[in-house]
Structures are given as C-alpha cells and as structure tokens.
C-alpha cells in the first residue's frame, strides 16, 4: 500500500505553521506590488469596457432609427443617408484578394522554409527578409502599392482601384500567413515525417499526406488571423484611393469593378471620423460596431476551429 502523507490545509495548527513561515509582519509590500500588477490588467479591461460602452452607446440610435438599411446604404455626404454597404462589399473583396493570393503563396513559402530549406546563407537571408516584412509599418506598404500598382502598372490596375488595394493588402498580410503557417508546420513531430520516409514516400508525398493534414488547424488559425488583419487595416488604403468620401454606385462588370473605385469598412470609419463628430459621430460609431461584429465573428471561428482540431503531441 502506498503511504500517503496527509497535509492539513486548514485548521488552527496549519494556520499557526503558515504564520510562522510567513514571518511576523504582514507582507504589505508584496501585497501592494501584486495589487499594482493586477491593476495593469484591470486598467486594460476598463479601457476595453469604456471603449465598447462608448461606441455602443453612440451607435445605438443609428441602428434604432435605420435598422439594417445602414448596412446596405451607399456612401453619402449626408450623415442620415450614409451607410456602410459599399464598405462591406469592399472589405469582402479585399479579404477575397487575401484568400486567393496570400494563402497559397504564404503556405507554400512556409512549406519551403520548414520542409525543404537547408540551413545555409540563402535560407537565413530569406527568413530575415520575411521577419523584416512583418515589421514594416503598414503605411509603407501603402507606398509600395502607390509606386508599383497605382503608378507602374496603372494600365492593368486602373490606378487607385480595388485591384491596387487588394494586391497591396495581400502583400501586407503575406508575412503573417508565412510565419503562422511555418509555426504550425514546425509543431508537427519529426516522427510523423520519418514514418512517411520510412515507407518510401518522397518529400512532397510526406508533406501532402502527413505534415499538412496535421498542421492544418494551426495553418487555418493563422490564415483567419490574416483575414482579420486585412479587415481592420486602413492605413495603406489611404494612399491608394481606398478612402473616398463618395463614389457612384451601380452595377459594373467584373473587370470594371476591379479597376474601379472602392472603399472598405475601416477606411469609411477613418473618413467619417475626420468630419465633425457632431454630424458623423453616430454613423462612425455604428460603422465601428459593424466592423467589430465581423471581426468578432472571424476570431470566434478561429478559436472554435482551434479548439476543435487542436491536438497535443
């Protein structure tokens, strides 16, 4: 029979021992320190709560008066008629660009880095340049888009157009996709790969049939984070025509849409915030509510998928 030691956790004896160990004076300095640390977190919470309360409180009247027409109305210089319809469509387009371009490119780059690259000078240069891309301020990506897509390839993109914005956004989130996908691939144990090689599979066969399926949940989480980033980012769009105060609505063909004017949810919030708060404050807050709701939806999906498919090795 195993011997178990019983430790008395409560009662006068335990309390006496605890007091003796703790020293005679109460640890006021320690408590104050702990309280100060906790205060940092509570302050962050307070900021969050105030932010959400402030925005919801201001936005409420817009939703009460206009209901869902706010979600479908076009941009307008009149606050009571301005809606975020064009912004929602534009943001969906931008996310589409990210999904079509950044996801395959980023995941392929991550596979190269983790599965194919050997440790040499070129690989180190490559991963340094990816880390560098991740650290560049987003507005500098706007300058890249301005120089390359708006000016150099204006014939193809149509200048300050949806296509320029989408391509720039795809480049902006590429390092995020690469880094998160590489992390997910790295977490797959070596033994899994060795099992594949052991039965004669080539590297690509191992990657396709073993590594990628096991890394999929992590890769997926990263791609969703990239989508969220593309949805919330406005700074580069300011340089490539993504923040007009108004543009004509109307059905356009596929290519015309790509080469035409556009806007996105965060860009609308920026433009409206620049106008007087008295006139546009409520609409701005309502647009923020829409943006945060979509972001919440995206992030909740990411967390659900992660919890559902995550595995511990």
């Amino acid at each position, binding site marked *: 029979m195993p011997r178990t030691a019983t430790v008395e956790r409560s009662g006068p004896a335990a309390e006496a021992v605890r007091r003796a160990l703790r020293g005679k004076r109460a*640890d006021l300095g*320690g408590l104050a320190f*702990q309280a100060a640390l*906790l205060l*940092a*977190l509570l*302050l*962050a*919470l307070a*900021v*969050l709560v105030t*932010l959400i309360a*402030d925005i919801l409180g201001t936005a409420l009247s817009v939703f009460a008066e206009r209901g869902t027409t706010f979600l479908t109305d076009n941009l307008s210089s009149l606050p009571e008629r301005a809606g975020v319809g064009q912004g929602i469509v534009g943001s969906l387009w931008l996310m589409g660009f990210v999904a079509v371009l950044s996801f*395959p*490119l980023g995941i*392929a*780059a991550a596979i*190269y880095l983790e*599965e*194919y690259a050997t440790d040499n000078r070129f690989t180190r240069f*490559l991963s340094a*340049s*990816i*880390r*560098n*891309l991740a*650290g*560049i*301020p*987003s*507005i*500098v*990506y706007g*300058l*890249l888009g301005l*120089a*390359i897509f708006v000016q150099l390839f204006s014939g193809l993109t149509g200048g300050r157009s949806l296509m320029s914005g989408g391509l720039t956004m795809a*480049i902006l989130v*590429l*390092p995020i996709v*690469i880094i998160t996908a590489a992390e997910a691939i790295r977490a797959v144990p070596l033994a899994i790969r060795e099992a594949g090689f052991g039965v004669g599979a*080539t590297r*690509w066969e191992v990657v396709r049939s073993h590594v990628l399926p096991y890394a999929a949940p992590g890769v997926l989480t990263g791609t969703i984070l990239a989508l969220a980033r593309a949805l*919330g*980012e*406005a*700074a580069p769009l*300011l*340089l490539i025509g993504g*923040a007009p105060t108004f543009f004509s609505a109307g059905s356009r063909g596929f290519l015309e849409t790509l080469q035409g004017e556009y806007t996105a949810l*965060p860009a609308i*919030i*920026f433009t409206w*915030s*620049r106008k007087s*708060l008295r006139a546009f404050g409520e609409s*701005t*807050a309502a647009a*923020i509510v829409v*943006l945060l709701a979509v972001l919440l939806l995206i992030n909740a999906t990411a967390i659900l998928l992660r919890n559902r498919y995550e595995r511990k090795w």
Partner: protein
Amino acid sequence: MAAIGIAELQGNARRRRRESRIRRVFLAAAATAIVINVAILLSLFDGVVDFFRELVEGPGLGVLWNDTGWFPRRNLFDVKTVFVGTVMISLIAMLVATPLGLGAAMYLSEYAGRRPRRILKPILEILAGIPSVVMAYFVISFISPDVVQRLFASATFYNMLGAGIGVGILISPIVASVAEDAMHAVPNTLREASFGLGARRKATTLRTVFPAAVSGIVAALILGVSRAIGETLVVTLAAGATGGSAFTLDPLGPGQTMTAALASLATGSDQVKGGSAAFPSLFFLGALLFLFTLVLNLASDRFVRRVRRKY
C-alpha cells in the same frame, strides 16, 4: 539476388522529376518575400531620389531644416518637426505601455494561477485585436475630450497627449505578450532556488525572474517603440495637424509624426502629384520610417535570440 544499387533506391525518374519541380515551386513562393523587400526598397529609393532632385532644382536643401515646420504644400519640409513629433508620441506611448504591458506580463507569468490566467489573458488578446482606426475614434470621442482636456485645461481638442495615450494602449498587448513569453521561458529551478532562500514572490519576480528575462523584456520594449513609430491612424486623426504643422514641443497641442504627415498629405486632397516636391516627400517619409523601424526590429530580434540561446 542482385545487389541493390543507388539507382534502385532513388525510385523512378518521373517521380524524381516531379519532386524537383515541386521544390522549385515552393522555392519561388518563398522567394517572393525577397522580391517584395526589393520592391519596397526600390520604390522608396526612387521616390527619395525624385524628392531630392525637386528640392535641389526648386527651393534648395535648406527647406529640410528651417524653423517654420512641415508644410509640404508650401515646400517646407522641416525634418525635425516630424521627427520630434514622432519621438514625443512614442515617448508618451511607452510611458503608458511600459507599466501596463510589463505589469500585465508579470502578473500573468508570476502571480496568476491557471484559472485566473484563462480569464485574464483574453483581455489582452481582445485589446490586441482592436483595429487602430477604432482606437483613433475612441481617442477623439473619449480620451481627448473626457480625459486629457479635463485634466489639462489648456489642452486643445486635437492634441498629442491623447494620441500618444491611444497609441500606448494599442501597443501594450504586444509589449505584454513578448515580455510574458520571456518571463515564461525562465526555468522554474531559478524560482525554486529563490523561494528556497526565503524570498517572497515579489523579490523572486523582481530580483530573479526579471533579471533572467531582461533581454526579452528589452526586446518587448523595443518592439513597442517600433510599433509606436509605425502607428498611423491614431496620430493622423487625433493629433490634428492636417496639411502641416509648425515645430512644437507642447504635448497638449496639435502635432504631427512621420506617419501622420504621410497619411494626411495623401488624403488631404486627392491629387498630390507632379510639379512640386510634395508628392515625392511621401516616399522620403516612408524611407525614414523604413529605416527607423528596421533598426529597431533588428535590435529587438537580437535581444529575443539572446533569451532563446540562454535557456
């Protein structure tokens, strides 16, 4: 039985050719990262050359250092105006983000048990997910009028202090998460040794864990500064100064950073182009930003790696 040679083990040629083709595809995908870096450098460089040519042909290089301020449409490009603005905003932001971020990191890493952690950590994660344009609105709708202007009667509605606080709140989750990683990486044996000598948790945190994780914490702070310098929308909206700004050291008044100067010039009127140095000045500011953040990111990277090597 015949001996098995290399040829038999290599598999058939078709499969090998497919394998090397796939490898090249992946390599090309990875190499786009280098291509993008080169494209950024080239487009910035091209613009900077344009900028200096316009200056030399037009108003002369003296406009880069004068006492009037940064007014691109009047061909006044006083670098120290935007530079000092950037330093001030970053300083205010770090005054907010350092206690907030490091305090949160220490509490999560050294004090919180598993369950409080599960409740408290999402606060930072949600805060990290707030888009900067939302924080920008929050600064002009709440922080500037209801906090800064109440505390300082002389503050204008658009002021650098409010913008700096907003930027600080935005970057504190980043500081917290990098610093917490660093403290988390400190081996438990160090803590146990400290407790064994009779140190309390506060002493253990400050005198054992903190010094052991110091390079990671420095990395977190440098990364925070780098993000603060690159933050655009909060400063553009909340620090005022559309179209230009005079040289100022007053945090309660309007001011301009490099990013805000860039964004407001680009959005002020739709057609910023040709004939003057205003349009290429965008790229000049971009190149400055690129350089500053590159240096800071490299430094931060080096510090992070030092932690990883140690444990």
